[in-house]
Structures are given as C-alpha cells and as structure tokens.
C-alpha cells in the first residue's frame, strides 16, 4: 500500500514511487554501529575540503544523526567500503546529491512513509510532500522555477533540528526570519509581481501577534505559517480571510458572520477582517478603532449616520467599563504595595476583564444592546473590587494608626523609665554627697 504522500503527488520517477519495503532508508543492520558506518563517509569527506567536506562538521548535531541515521540513509551507497568507487557506486544504491527539483521527493522518501516515520514518532505528520505540491512553492517548482523554497530552504540541510528546538529555523520565534530570508529580499523576489510587496515580515514585526510571540514568549502566537500554512503555503483569498482569522478568533467570526457587515463586505468584495485590522500589521484592537481620530468605522461611515452613532455608543460604554477596571486595579495595586493580600480581589477583577474582552468581541455584531449586556455585567464586578481595594487601604490606615498608638505608648514608658533613672541618679548623688 503506497504511503499517503504518494497518492496525489506525481513522483513516479522518484524513489518514493518504489515499494515501501525498498523505499525505506537503510536500516541499521549487522554488527556495525551507526557511528562506524558513518565514519567511512565522514573520514573521506573531511579530507576533501570545500563543499564536499562542509556537511561533515554540522551533521553530528543533525536530528537524523541523533536518531541513528547515517549519510547513507539519505544518499545511499556502501559506507562500509573505503573505496570511493564502491562506496558511491550506483550498484550500491548511491543516490548522491539531489537536484533542486528532486529535493521534496528526496526528503519525502522517508517523511511520506507513515510506517517508517511512526517508528520514531507515532504522532508525526507524513503529508508534507503532498501539501508541498499544493503550495505556491510546490506548484512553481513543478513549473521549473528553481528559486522557490524547497524543504532545505526552511529546514536547512545537514544540521536539521526538531521544530521544537530553539535552534531550528522553523522554531516559532525564528519563522518570520526564515520566511523573510526570501520574502523580504528585493533582489530575490524580482519576477514575482503577483506578491503584494516585500514588507510583510517588517509589518508583521510591528503587530500585536509578533509582540505576543517575541515579548511574551507565547509560542502559540500566530506566525506566518499559522495563516498561510507551512508546507501547503498559499496566500489566503479575500473570501477565506474571515475563516483564517476565525480559526483563533472564533467569537469574532461568529458575530461578524451574523452582522450586516458580512453581506455588505461580500457584496463590495471587501476583504473581511483585514479591511479594519490590516493583515500583517495587526494592532491591538480596542474602542479607538470605533470612535475618535483612529476610527476605522469612519473610513466607510459618515459622521452622524447610524453606523457612526452605533460605533460611538459602543465605544463610550466600553470605555466606561475599562475606566472602572483601571480604577479598581490601581486601588488594588496600592493595597498590594502596602502589603495587603489582593489575590482574591485580583481574581475577581479578571472576571470583569473577561466581560470587557467579550464586549470588544461583541462589537462585531454591530448590536449596541449586546455590547451593553456585557458591560452591565462587568461594571458591578469592577465596582465591588474597587470597594474591596478601598476597604483594604482603609485597613492599612487603621493598622498604621494602631502601631502609631503603640509606639506612642512605648515612647511614654521609655520616657518614664528615663525620668526614673535620672531621678534615681540624683537621689544617689545627693545621698553620697
């Protein structure tokens, strides 16, 4: 039974078309240890210099080497022979260095073989090759474009790391740089006129998504591949943008799809979320996008029309809750600095903040009543927490007054003792004299 990757990918000429039993890489057989098998390749290549010796240095740190694979596992040949003619003979299955067009199948030979890959990781994906040929990169490679990205452009070669390894070019924090290597290079991207520009990565690095990734270390924050996919990378079409963003922002999508905007945007062929939030340079969204100088509503609506009035009403009510939360938080912080335990109150305030977040989500419904509903649930919580904070500050004051009284009492006692000692000294001196 062919591996899943072979069903749709026309790679008949590639080794992947071979029967599964023969397509698997060289397994570790015999008494020879993997490092001994590899050593013969490395021993010769280290002495070659230049590009022939280049792979030998990083390969020991490659994930393949760590899992026991050798040079011959990918390149074939007979690593037990020190004779280059034998070791690298076609009769011994030597495949040599793949051409650029052959790279996807070269890697897919193992990575599309589910049975083989599951020996190393039962949950690993094995459809990368199939997905790759659905991507813009794969399609252009098929058309003979040798400049498009293949496996090795993103994953590197001979020093490949797991995606979870911070040193990997496809580790979440490194993905913008990896995509940007080509997509931000003006010279390299010449000839791809259908791409929107070269500023995607620079724009992304100004976004709230990147801030979450880089500054907060949130590795699940969206990167290039979250919206564009990795192996099946394509630009999302205008119609699918709401679905792409809605993968994470599910509530926003639901409200948006039920709103009057959904039909109107479709009719005008306006790109859903991106119209208001931009695509790569997505900024923190709050009520400033509704009303005020940065309002995105006013790019389409006129001052005083129903849309503008709703936007202003929603912004005003959301700002009320936000102000109440900030006031409560400031009071709690003050109590916290004074040494009071505010953990319970802080947890309560988080509930008010949830209503604030939901209210900001609910604006996509364009329904003022729905937004008000959330705000009216959040305001009493914020007010209660504010009162708790004030109570704690009052307790701090009463503690301080109590201690001040105690100190005054102690001062009185100390003074009395001092006066007693002085009196005693005088009495003693007069009796001595």
């Amino acid at each position, binding site marked *: 039974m062919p591996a899943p990757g072979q069903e749709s990918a026309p790679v008949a000429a590639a080794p992947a078309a071979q029967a599964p039993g023969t397509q698997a890489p060289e397994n570790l057989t015999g008494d020879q240890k993997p490092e001994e098998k590899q050593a013969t390749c490395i021993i010769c290549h280290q002495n070659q210099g230049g590009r022939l010796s280049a792979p030998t240095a990083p390969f020991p740190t490659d994930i393949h080497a760590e899992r026991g694979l050798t040079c011959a596992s990918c390149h074939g040949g007979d690593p037990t022979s020190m004779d280059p003619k034998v070791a690298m003979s076609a009769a011994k299955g030597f495949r040599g260095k793949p051409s650029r067009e052959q790279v996807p199948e070269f890697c897919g030979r193992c990575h599309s073989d589910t049975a083989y890959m599951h020996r190393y990781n039962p949950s690993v994906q094995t459809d990368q090759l199939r997905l790759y040929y659905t991507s813009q990169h794969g399609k252009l490679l098929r058309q003979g474009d040798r400049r498009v990205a293949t496996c090795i452009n993103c994953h590197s070669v001979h020093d490949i790391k797991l995606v979870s390894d911070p040193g990997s070019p496809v580790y979440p924090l490194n993905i913008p740089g990896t995509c940007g290597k080509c997509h931000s290079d003006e010279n390299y991207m010449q000839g791809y006129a259908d791409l929107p520009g070269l500023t995607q990565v620079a724009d992304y690095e100004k976004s709230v998504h990147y801030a979450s990734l880089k500054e907060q270390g949130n590795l699940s924050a969206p990167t290039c591949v979250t919206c564009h996919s990795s192996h099946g990378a394509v630009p999302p079409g205008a119609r699918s943008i709401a679905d792409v963003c809605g993968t994470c922002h599910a509530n926003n999508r639901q409200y948006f799809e039920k709103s009057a905007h959904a039909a109107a945007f479709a009719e005008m062929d306006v790109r859903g979320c991106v119209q208001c939030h931009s695509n790569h340079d997505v900024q923190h969204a709050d009520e400033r996008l509704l009303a005020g100088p940065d309002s995105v509503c006013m790019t389409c609506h006129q001052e005083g029309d129903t849309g503008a009035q709703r936007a202003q009403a929603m912004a005003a009510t959301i700002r009320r809750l936000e102000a109440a939360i900030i006031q409560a938080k400031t009071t709690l912080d003050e109590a916290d600095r004074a040494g009071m335990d505010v*953990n319970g109150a802080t947890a309560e305030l988080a509930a008010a903040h949830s209503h604030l977040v939901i209210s900001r989500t609910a604006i996509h419904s364009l329904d003022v009543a729905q937004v008000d509903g959330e705000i009216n649930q959040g305001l009493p919580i914020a007010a209660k927490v504010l009162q708790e904070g004030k109570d704690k500050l009052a307790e701090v004051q009463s503690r301080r007054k109590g*201690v001040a009284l105690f100190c005054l009492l102690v001062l009185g006692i100390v003074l009395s003792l001092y006066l007693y000692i002085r009196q005693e000294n005088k009495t003693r001196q007069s009796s001595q004299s």
Partner: protein
Amino acid sequence: MEKSSSPKEPESSPAPGRCSPLGWLEERLDLAPLKEFVRHKAVPVHKHSHWYYLGGMTLFLFLVQVITGILLLLYYQPSESNAFESVRFVMTQVRFGWLIRSIHGWCANLVMALAFSHMFSTFFLKSYRKPRELTWVSGMLLLGLMLGFGFSGYLLPWNTLSYFATMVGTNIAGALPGLGPFVLRFLRGGDSITGATLTRFFGFHVAILPAITAPVLMLHLWLIQKQGMSLPVSVEEKHRAEGSKPPELRFFPDFLIRELMGWYIALAVLAGLAALFPWELGVKADPFASAPPGIQPEWYFLFMFQTLKYIPAKILSLDGEVLGILAFGLGGVLWLLVPFIDRGPATGNWSRRVRQAGVFVVIYIIVMTAVAYVLKESR
C-alpha cells in the same frame, strides 16, 4: 527524719509577711541564695559599658522569635501543597496574623544583626580572654545556631525566592569535598528540593535547633552569671594601676530598667517595620519554573555568596568554589578558637594583629554585602 528532710516545717506557723506568692514559694524552695545573688549582682560602669546591653537585646529578640514562632505554629502546615496557603491564611484571615508573621520575619533579621554586633563588640573588647573562653565558644555556637534558624526558616513559606535561595544554599553545602553529596542529600531529604526538604527544614527549625539552642543558651547565660561582666583591657589596666575598682551599677533594678528601655524601643521598631513594610509572602514556589534572575540568600549570608561568585572556577586545577567554602570553614574555626589563639598579653603585638584581623573581617563583610546589594539593584 521526715521532718528534718523538708525545707520548712509544714505545721509551723507562717512568718509575718509570707502570705504573698513569693513568701509561699520561699517557704518551700528557700529563695534566699537567689535573692542574695540578685541583691549583690552588679555591672561595671565605664565608657564602654553600653555594649553590655547588646547581649540582653539579642536575648529579648530571640524570645520574641520564640513567642511569635509558637503562634505561627498554630496555623502553619509544613507540606508542599499547604505551606504557602497556610502562611497566606495567617496573613489574611487570622486576627493580627499579619502582624505576628511580619514581626517574625523582621525580628529574624534584627536578631541576626544584634547577634553579629554582640559578637564583634565582645571580640573588640577582648571579653573572650581568660577565664571567659567558654563563654565565647558557647556564644559562637549560638550564632551558628541562629544562622541555622535563619536558613531553615527561610524555606518555610515555600515561595519562589525561598525555594531558589535554598537551592543555591544547599548547592553550596553540597560542593564540600568528600562530605558534600551526603550533606546535600541530608539537608534536602533527596536529590532536589521537594516537600521532603520542607518537612525536614521545619523539623530543624522547630525541634532540632531549639533543642540544641536551649542548653547552649543556658550554659552561655550561666557562664556570664558565674564570671560576671568582663572589663575592657584599657579599663582593667587603669584601675589595676590605680589600685581601685570601677564604679558599679546594681543589676536589679538599675541595669534591668535601662535594658528594659532598649527592649521597649526594639519592640516599637519591630511593630513599626511590620506595619509600614509588611513582610512579603511573594509567589508560591514552582519547582518547574526557572529561577528568577538575581536570586540571593538572606543578607547575613551575602558576603560569602558574593565572594564565591568572584572566585575563579579553577585555581591550580582545584575547584574554586570548593576552595572558597574551605576557606570560609577555616575562617569560622579560627574565629571560634580566637580565645586560644590570642593568649598573650592583651597589649602585645600578637594581640594587636588579632584585632587588625577582626577589623579586616568587619570591613570585608560590609563591603561584600554592599557590593552584592548594589549589583542586584543595578541589575
């Protein structure tokens, strides 16, 4: 026989004025020698006699620690899951719990500061000289026990700072050559800091250390009563030359009243610190979290911690940290044995060198502690 063995005849009529509790006690225990001792106990008065108050102040603060510690013990639960929560409960739910816990935290530091001051004042007044060698040794043992109280108590709230500071501290102990791995496992109750370490430290803090401290403290106090207060060298020589005795102050009530003033002031300072700067609880320890940057032990261990940082990793193929620990160990032993090292005339060259070494130690401790604080602030 029976009648003659009892201190007082039970059927004898009570003497006039013996209806008071003291009279009742005296009838049974014969307090006359004790009263005689108190009546005659005196403290010499001279220009350095204010240093005499430090010992009593340290004892008073130690008693505050004992009392507040017992009160905390009523609520504290020494387990990984409950320790932090129980301290939080004390601070938020128990009436005056915040005050008791804050006083315990602040007092622990004041006790250490006073114990160090008392020790250095004794050193520079050369009060350790014959016949008070054992008083010095018992005092040094008490200082070591105080450090043990501080180290074991620091972990008990089970917050992030205490967790990682204990990790650093036990790692240092574990670097000792030979015994290190055993000491590390003995302190931690395993390879890493877990609930077992917490239970063990709790045991040290409330049972083992108090059980050792009580007799050593009794010995220290008994020696002081037995030998009386030491006179500084200059005062002793002056009066010897004049053939006179220094003026004296009756211990009871004159000295005690003056001491009481210091105790009251210490109590007011403690209450003020506890109310204005409550002892923080911090964040519950998470053994899986990474250590926060700039983790440091308590201030009284800082000079050693900072020194170990400056020692190169290798010194002549020997581990630098191990050499540092051994040097501090040797320094501690020499300091303990000062009365036996400095046995010559108090004004001799050797004695002057011992004094200079003491000045160097004080300056070194102050400078290294200050450097550690400054570096932490700049980070």
